[in-house]
Structure formats: structure tokens, C-alpha cells
């Protein structure tokens, strides 16, 4: 067995640490240039670059590209946590998993229409295209109606209608994380950030989140991992930073620019969801 050298302890989200302690076994299900996805039964583990910060089901590596090259991991390889570290196929990633240190949350002002409009304009002038925007434009699978109804029903406190609209968005669109899921991820991440900061979030949002959680089999396992954790309020550093920036903390361009670079249209879709949620609580 070849060992991939790793001199530093690795930061990991709560789910990744739990999987490690459970000595679970799984398999590699997706290898991308900056991310390796593994499944452990119904759970997903993500090996990602440390610039992503904390992902609840992820382990942050100093150099994901070099790590991937060293592993030459192929889909279908087995994965297991052992006493010596994470074993993928015939390779061993010697590691000590630690919880990340989170910086103190920045204080921020109440969201204003101006800030939201500025972020919206930034997203659209960044060449945002495809994804949920296409789905909305074509009203594919009633996307336009669902997006509109979700916001409207939450404002009106109609939990049932909001939940039905949110559920219709699950799994909508193409790619590893479908556009509808990314949109919901951004939407609920923003609501969680707002709630944490003591803002008034519509009570119907809880029932809505529960309905989405109960229907995660409508999307892929990897996307369900992102969406489920976002809905449960787990900490995603990059999404959280963008949501806080949208709500008024610091310079939004830096954090939003990072999210916009994620995936083919995932970043745009996530920010579109966050913007819609910000408009709901404004």
C-alpha cells in the first residue's frame, strides 16, 4: 500500500469526523478536478480544497489537485477509515482529522434593498447564465412558478404552499448538483444566517425545510448531501460567507465571486436562491 504523505492535520466537518470514528467503508463515486466524492451507504464524503473552508461532510486538503493525482482514484475504488488514516483503493492518506477553527462572525447591518440590488446586479453582470435562470426563462417543470410561489407563500405565511413549491424545485436541472437544489441551498443558507443573527425569518420556512428534507430522494445522493446539510443548518463556510455578505457583512464581491466560480452554474444558482431569500425577509 502506498502512503500519500500529509504532514499537517486535516480539518474536517462534523459528518466527516463521525464517519472516521465509525470506521465506515464506502466507495469513490465521483472524481473531479477539485473534489473527490465518496459514498458511505446513504452518506457522502467530500475531499476538497481547503479554500472551500468547512463543509460538514468534507475533509479539507492542502492541495486537492496533487492529492488527486497521487491517488489516481477511479470511480468504484473502495474507501475506508483505518487507524492509520483514510484508505482509498491501494493508497493511504495518513491523516489526523480536526475540527476547523471558525473565525468570529462579523457583525453586519440589517439588509437593505440597496445591498440586495447591488448583489443581484453583480451576479447578472458577472455573466450569469444557464442553470436556474434558463429553467425560469423556459418555465421548465414549472420552475418560474415554483420560484415565485416559494417566496410569495413564505411572505404570506402559507407553509403548505411554500413547501409544495420548494419540493417541486428539488432535482430540477442538469449536473452533479441540479439547479433547483443549488437554488434551495442558497435560499435556506441565507435564512439560517439571518436567523442566527436574530433577524425575523418567516416561521413557515421550518415546515418548508422539513418538506424538502423528506423528499431528498428526488435528487442525486451528492446533491442531497449539500441540500440536506444546508437545510439542517450545518456550516458551509463559503455559502455562509456569501449569505452574510448579502445581508450586509463586509465586501460582498469577494465572497460572492468565490461562489460564482463554483461548478458550471451552481454558484449562480446558489446566489440566486440567497438573493430571493433576502428579498423575502427584507
Amino acid at each position, binding site marked *: 500500500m502506498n502512503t500519500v504523505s500529509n504532514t499537517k492535520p486535516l480539518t474536517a466537518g462534523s459528518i466527516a469526523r463521525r464517519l472516521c470514528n465509525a470506521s465506515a467503508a464506502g466507495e469513490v463515486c465521483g472524481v473531479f478536478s477539485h473534489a473527490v466524492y465518496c459514498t458511505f451507504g446513504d452518506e457522502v464524503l467530500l475531499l476538497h480544497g481547503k479554500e472551500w473552508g468547512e463543509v460538514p461532510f468534507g475533509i479539507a486538503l492542502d492541495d486537492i489537485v496533487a492529492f488527486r493525482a497521487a491517488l489516481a482514484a477511479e470511480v468504484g475504488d473502495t474507501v475506508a477509515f483505518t487507524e492509520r488514516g483514510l484508505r482509498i483503493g491501494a493508497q493511504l492518506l495518513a491523516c489526523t482529522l480536526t475540527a476547523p477553527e471558525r473565525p468570529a462572525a462579523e457583525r453586519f447591518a440589517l439588509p437593505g434593498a440597496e445591498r440586495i440590488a447591488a448583489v443581484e446586479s453583480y451576479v447578472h453582470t458577472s455573466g450569469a447564465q444557464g442553470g436556474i435562470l434558463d429553467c425560469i426563462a423556459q418555465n421548465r417543470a414549472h420552475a418560474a412558478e415554483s420560484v415565485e410561489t416559494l417566496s410569495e407563500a413564505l411572505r404570506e405565511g402559507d407553509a403548505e404552499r411554500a413547501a409544495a413549491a420548494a419540493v417541486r424545485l428539488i432535482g*430540477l436541472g442538469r449536473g452533479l448538483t441540479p439547479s433547483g437544489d443549488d437554488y434551495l441551498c442558497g435560499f435556506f443558507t441565507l435564512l439560517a444566517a439571518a436567523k442566527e443573527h436574530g433577524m425575523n425569518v418567516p416561521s413557515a420556512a421550518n415546515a418548508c425545510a422539513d418538506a424538502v428534507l423528506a423528499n431528498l430522494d428526488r435528487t442525486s445522493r451528492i446533491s442531497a448531501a449539500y441540500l440536506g446539510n444546508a437545510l439542517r443548518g450545518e456550516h458551509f463556510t463559503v455559502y455562509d460567507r456569501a449569505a452574510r455578505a448579502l445581508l450586509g457583512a463586509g465586501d460582498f464581491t469577494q465572497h460572492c465571486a468565490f461562489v460564482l466560480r463554483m461548478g458550471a452554474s451552481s454558484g449562480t444558482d446558489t446566489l440566486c436562491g440567497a438573493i430571493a431569500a433576502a428579498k423575502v425577509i427584507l
Partner: protein
Amino acid sequence: MKILVCNVGSTSLKFKLYEMPEKKVYATAKVERVGSETDAIYSFTNVATGEKIEKDHLAVPKYKDGIALFLSDLLDKKQGILDDIKEISAVGFKTVLAKGHHGVFELNEEVLGAMRDYLFIAPAHNRPYLDAIGEFQAMLPDALLVGSFETAFHKTIPMERRLYAVPYEWYEQYGIQRFGFHGHSHEYTARHLPELTGKTSFKAVSCHLGGSSSLCAIEDGKSVDCSFGFTPQTGLPHAARVGDIDAYVVPFLINEGLSMDEITTAFSKNGGLLGISGVDSDLRFIEEAANGGNARAKLAIDMLVASIVKYIGSFYAEMGGLDYITFAGGIGENSKTIRKMVCEKLGCFGVKLDEEKNNNVHGECEISAADSKVKIYTIATDEEQMVAMKTYEYSLEH
């Protein structure tokens, strides 16, 4: 005789210029995003020289602008294809449906009027064709414009399978019946199977699976049943169209408060594989989502397969046997998953796929196992060539 074939979509135009009866292709072209002032895409291929012209970010607000792009390249001296536009003797269109017209017709005012009569039931098909044909009338006034209707091949379906059990007067007064569509693709298969197998007497099911999907029962080269009915909204689940549904769903939904417009939009744009999966209308993305664990995406695929199997089973019984199954269209030619799932379900009829052949299909292939009682083929149907042949035959007779 030079014959131009034009395939018109709601936002696209496809052209092929033929020399007939030799079936020689001089040039092909495609315009996408017709209607765009800034973002249309155009490609032109001179088949003789292999030269390809590709342009994007074009302004093609109307069909006439797309047609003009193609005609100007045909007349370009560098291409050496046409010296004069009058060399085009006829333009053939793969038209879909016109009231009381099921064959090949000159597109005169009477026939265009009959197409307008069926705008309500085939809006996505007849509207673009009516618009484009109007432009050709103005731009090529000397050419014969011919419509080869998709329903023509299915005229041989016997009455007991053609009619719905509605009051007979509806058939007489309104023409309510199963017309069947995708006639050019199924007829191509019907004409091509004897060339492939050396047999002129056979029983086959032709599966044209794509954005629109249909199955046709073919006996000795003739259509004897088709999964499509009165409109292209029926039959198998399509990419975004609903397929077969109980007629009483409509009054029920109206009673529930939905408008007719909402219902028809859902049936024609938000149904089918898109409606069930909630993912996309493109099967490639639905398969990807299903492989990733999306239960609704898997359900959409299972429903498509179940519907195909159901029709093949009933066609088998109607014809009293089956010699060949053919797969054509974007899904039929390219989805080894759908072919495998369908054939596995048909094992009771002696249908047996050769997995290795199925996994390595390129164009036209036989993919059945050596001991399969039913031979299975993928066929790259050439609908444009069928239209060119029909247009040529019509122009000789008239």
C-alpha cells in the same frame, strides 16, 4: 433535378440540397436560435469539398433571414453549387398535419388552409412550417413547394385500429381518428429493412425514440399500427409532452379550477420525461440523475421503458409475431440503457440482446444475440432523404 429539403423547428431551420433521383447531397446547413437578434448560430457544409462554414452571434430575427443565409452560400461562386436560384426545382417540407390531407401535396392555399385548421392540435409544428413556407413562397417563387405529411405512411392502418370508440359521426364530421406521425422515419425503416435482411415479407416494430417518441407496427413494409393518435401529444411519454392520458383528466382538472390553457401547456411543455423526473427533458441528463440516485429520474426512465414494452407487446399480438425490432432517433440510436432495458423486458418473446454489440453501437448495427428469435437493429433513419424522394416522385407525377 435539384430538390431542397427544409426541416423547420420552432427556433431552428435545417436544409439539405439533393440531386434526385441520385440522392446525392450537395450541401447541408443548420440555423439555430431563429428569432434572436444577437445570438443565432449558423453552419453550412459543402458536402463535395467538405468545407464547413460556422458563424455565431448572428441576427436571425425571422425565418426569412435564416433562409437568406443559406441561399447566399448556395449561390456563392466559391462554393460552386448553384449559379442561379432557379436551379432549385422544388422544396420539400416534412410537414406534420393538415385537415383532410394525408399524403404528399403541393403547398397551395387550400393545403396551407388545412394546416391552419389544425393549428390548435399541432401548434408547435404547424405554426413554424406555415411561417417558413410563406417565406419560401416569396423567396423562391418559381420553385414547387411540396409538403410530405407525417401522417401519409399510416394511411394503411386498418379501421379497427384507426378509429376511437367515439360517436362515428365525430370521425365523419371532425375527422377524429388515430393519424400516426413520424411517418418519414418509420417509412425509411420499412423501406430499408428488406435491404438489410433480404426479406420483403416481415413483421417489425420500428421504435423512433427522441424528443418525440413513437412506435410503429410494420407488416410487409406497411404501417399497421402506431403509438401516436390524433395529435403528436399521444402515445409514449415524450421529452416534455405527456403521451397517452385518460381523456377525462381534462374535465376533471377544469372542474378543479385549472384553465384549458394551463392544462394544454402542462401536456405539451411540462409533461413527459421532464414532468415525471423534474430534472430535464433531455434523457442524457435524466439518466445521469438516475445513476446519481434521483428516484423520480429513475421513475421517468422506467415509465418510458414500460410504455415501449407495452406497445411492442400489443403490436406483437396484433401482427401475430415479430421478426425485427429497430431503434432510431436520438434516444433509440444513442441510449444503450433504454435499448437494454426494453429488450430485457421482452425476453418472453425470445428477444435477446448482444450486450457487447449494444454497448458499441455506431450508426446502423445489428445488436441481437445469435440465438435471439427477433433480430434487433439500430437504424440511422434519414427523414430528409424520404422527403426528397417523395417530393421528387410528386414533381414527376404533377
